[in-house]
């Protein structure tokens, strides 16, 4: 087994912020705005490339670090790498990017950034993640795409991953 970048990360029990279906949501005539919980639900259960754990369990993504403005079509996401020199940061960001490209209406402009002060090469990572062409180029790489797809297979769980005791 290759050496892991961070072999023994801290595990956080996810604060169970689960959406309960409301009467409004079941009412045909009411419009449900896209909000931060909905966007967080999309990315919380993406798998970490190194561990069989979700980004939420590793505290890489948090509900508080997702900002959504449905009326102005803007979304800002901040994520926190597990350690400041984590070389997986770009890959994690890319997974989030691809997940949102596939799951959100095209009208949104989405910024994905490393949370301030949590990574050595913050700016480089941010630049890579928010440049359309670079993202597209990265996804041309079939091996990389495969890794991303692999991380995304758990994404639909939306926080409901059942780890056995």
């Amino acid at each position, binding site marked *: 087994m290759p050496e892991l970048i961070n072999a023994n990360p801290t595990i956080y029990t996810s604060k*169970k912020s689960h959406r309960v279906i409301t009467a409004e949501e079941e009412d045909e005539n009411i419009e449900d705005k896209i909000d931060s919980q909905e966007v967080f639900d999309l990315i919380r259960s993406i798998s970490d490339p190194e561990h069989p754990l979700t980004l939420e369990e590793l505290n890489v993504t948090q509900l508080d670090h997702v900002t959504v403005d449905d009326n102005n079509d803007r979304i800002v996401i901040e994520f926190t790498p597990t350690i400041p020199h984590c070389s997986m940061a770009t890959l994690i960001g890319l997974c989030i990017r691809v997940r949102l490209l596939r799951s959100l209406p095209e009208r949104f402009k989405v910024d994905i950034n490393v949370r301030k002060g949590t990574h050595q090469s913050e700016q480089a990572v941010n630049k890579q993640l928010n440049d359309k062409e670079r993202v597209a180029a990265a996804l041309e790489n079939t091996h990389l795409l495969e890794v991303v797809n692999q991380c995304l*297979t758990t994404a639909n769980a939306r926080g409901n991953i059942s780890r056995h005791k």
Partner: protein
Amino acid sequence: MERLVRNYMITSNEATEEAKSIVYEIVYNIKSGQATLITLVQVLGEFLTNEDGTIRAKGTGLLSTVLADCPQEQVNNAAINVLVDFYCERLSDTASVPELLQGIESLAHFNSFHNENSLKVAKSIFASVNVQSFQQTTRHYVFQIFDRLLKHHLNALKQMRQDFVTGFIQAMDGEKDPRNLLLAFSLIKLIIHEFDISQHVELLFEVTFCYFPITFKPPPDDPYGITADDLKIALRECLSATPYFAELAMPLLLEKLTSSSGNAKKDSMETLTACAPVYGAKSIVPYLEDLWDYLKDEIVNATDDSFEDIALEAIKSIVATLSSGIINRMDHLQQFLKTVVTECMENLKEPELKLAKPCGKILMYCAMASDPAFNIVMLATLRVLIQQYKENELATRKKGILEVLRVFITASKILYGSIENPLENLDADFVTPLSTFKDSYMEIFSSALLNQNEYSDLRLCGLLGLHDMILLHQFLNDEEIGIILQYFNRAVLEEIDQEISNEALKSLADIAKYKPNIVLEVTLPVFLDNLPCDKDEMKIDIIRGMNVKEANYVKILDALSELAIEPILFEAYVPQILNKLDFASSTENDLEYSESLLKSLHSLLLKKTNHSDISRYVEVIVPHLLTKSIGPSLYDKSEVNNTIQCVFFDKKVIKIVTGIISVITKNLNASEQSIFISQMFEIFVKGNLNLKYLGFSDQEKASFSVEFNPLSVESSFHQQNLTLLFTAAVGSCRKEVPYPLPNISEFLSKIIEISLNTKNELQRHSLAQLGASILNKWNQESELSQFIETKILGELRNHFALSSTGNEAIRQTSLDIFIWLTKALILRAHILGYRCIDQITSRFNDQTLGKRASEGFEVLIGESDSLNKQSFAVIKTLYKQRFFNYCMPILAEGFKLSNDEVKHNYLIALSHLLRNIPKQVLLSELPPLIPLLIYSLSLPDAELKSSTIDTFYIISANAPHIISEHVSSLIPLLLSSTKVDKGNTMRVRISALQCLGILPDHVPFDVLFPFKSKILRELSAALDDKKRLVRKQAVDCRSKWFLFIGPRTD
């Protein structure tokens, strides 16, 4: 005979019909005594000695085939000796070996086949047959023969000693066929157990271990039904059959443990688990260090939960093996556990990190392995962990430690037994050593739960630990359990954190199963006392403000309906609840409170499915509720308005009471039911309120101003509503229970009459169900048929069949009743029921009744809550299938012939039909219906559309090949159903997305791939649907399609 044999010999091969019929005739002749086996052998003589090998083989084949079907008595002791000798001597004739072995296999099944014969057979096969040079079927005969010999003539074979062992090894050496191997493995295991193998350990090991690890994959159509697991387990049983293998196997198993193949690793670990106890401590000690390293790595870096579990089991097996040695071997146990504990404790210094959990598990599995192991691990860790817990402030860290502490409770449960799962033959003084730490455990886990400012996961862990401790065998005494239950009571009643309060209730409910006495004493009174039962308490609740009223009694009643299930608890609960109900309904006239009390009672009764105590409550609960319900309906309207007791006028309340009466009635035996319903007839049909059963006081009776006549059209609505109670009782009776009626026909006619004329919908519906129940259970065939002919197909039908009557209301009502009665007949598959169906389907084209008639299919075939197995309805097996087979052609034909406005009535009926028939029927009858279903998707009827899409969903999952043929028409229709449009309710849009999403799971890639980009493109609109639930489905569906990339090419 001679003619037959000659004819056989000139057939082209033995598989032809002709050959088979000749064999059949010969066997028949022998069975009937016209010929004997001897004659057959004599006639065959010249062929058996023929110079041509194929002729000899064919002759032998005929004899062998006949032997297989030959009756026992044809082959006596003398004959068997001759035949066995004959067969064995000829085994050197290679050309005939397959046929000879076939014959020997048959011979071995004769009762006269004795030990001498078996020796002869074994020796001859070893001497003359080079087993592995023959094809599979022939080899299979060999293994079958040995299987038979070893199981029936073992002692004889044992005389052969080494010769048998070597002979068998030679026979199986090189075997590759899974069917033969499965048999051979089981024989090897038997040989290891029964023969002295000490001289041939190495050889025997070689011919078995060479198959390890099993890499067999069954061919796609799986013709033999043998799985890789079957082979793995059979081989594992060989390898773990003798300690002789230890020395040879251990290094090899260790090597495979480090293999890069997951399969080999898994198999090695599982084999190790099985072998360790057999091989013994001595054999594994030299490898302990390596084993620990590999297994630890599997657990700590597990990427797959199943690997982790297997590795943990292996560790447990190793520890158990080390424990079972003699005293001085305990050193190895001590030493091994020391290594394990030291490494684990190192990782537990920071218990919030990822590695803590697997390390906790390792400690648990070690402790679970044996009593000495438990003691060693416990003593080496607990003091430190407890100290660590007390000194730490960080909540996540405390929780990590508490989790590990809890691990010992779990281990203790498994090793020393628990109340829920008591170990058999448990030694009375085999008590968990955890008792030493009982006080610390109580203190730590209690304080974790009770500290309300703490991190809720820590509190939860405390709660779960306390719950497990209660269940531990001989750990806590009743008093200590009582204290914990008080904590749980408080958590349920006062806790703000929902999760903790729910978990506490779950624990209480669980403990109530095992310790009902303590719950009766400590918990039940507290909960019952907290239910308001006089004006002051009610007021106090309201003054306390907020939603106290709601929060309190609703929560308490919900809790009680989880708790009071055990008979002694229920017994204490019932009088109190009835008491509170009196208060709530009469003094307070509080509808919501009354409703909650009744609901709690009802849900408890439903949970008591296995309890026999229900039946006695027919004397307690039922009369109480009847009196309560009937009383208020006996006053004039003017009186009622300004006085009391309107709670029981409420329809919701009446419906719950109905449910209660129904569940109690169902739990009575036939004679109890019989007594009960004669009282019900007395009350509801005759209006007799003087029965002692009811318990109205004379004073009350004097104050009543109206008669009780609930079935009458003239009575007040409130009285009429009480029909439901009557229906519940009568409709829940066993079919052998007689009604106290002189004439069933008359009573049924009366019921139909009332339901046609009443203006009370509730009563009408209830009477229709009552009629249906009586009709369904009616066991006098001729009277039943006559009734159907004249009353149902006659009078009742006339009300709706003729559109000229002009009274549409009567037409509709009569059709509704007709549908219910038809259902009763369909359930019992009564022949006249089908004529009734004709009447219903013939209304589909009716302008006013068409829709109602087609919707009626839901009643006809759907599950009903009144006419079902629980209410003892007569239900013929396969009635749904019969119904389906009868209706399908009518619907398909009707659809074709009818004009567009009414076409969709046929589709509605069809959709009800498809939704309710068993899946196997659906899938086999489906193909001709697909065009109809696809047509339904183009109609704007939302209900129809969503149910059709659901049908397609079922088809996709279970019969994708049917979908494959229609994808090009189906997919565009599904896509358009995802768009916001007329008829596309959110339910339709969601169903369509679900259906599109399931396709990639089942339909082949090459069929779907052409649609992939179109689907992804068109679904992007659904990502912006105004409903969140639709968006969620759209995301899931799209993500399925993005990840749908077909088989990997590498």
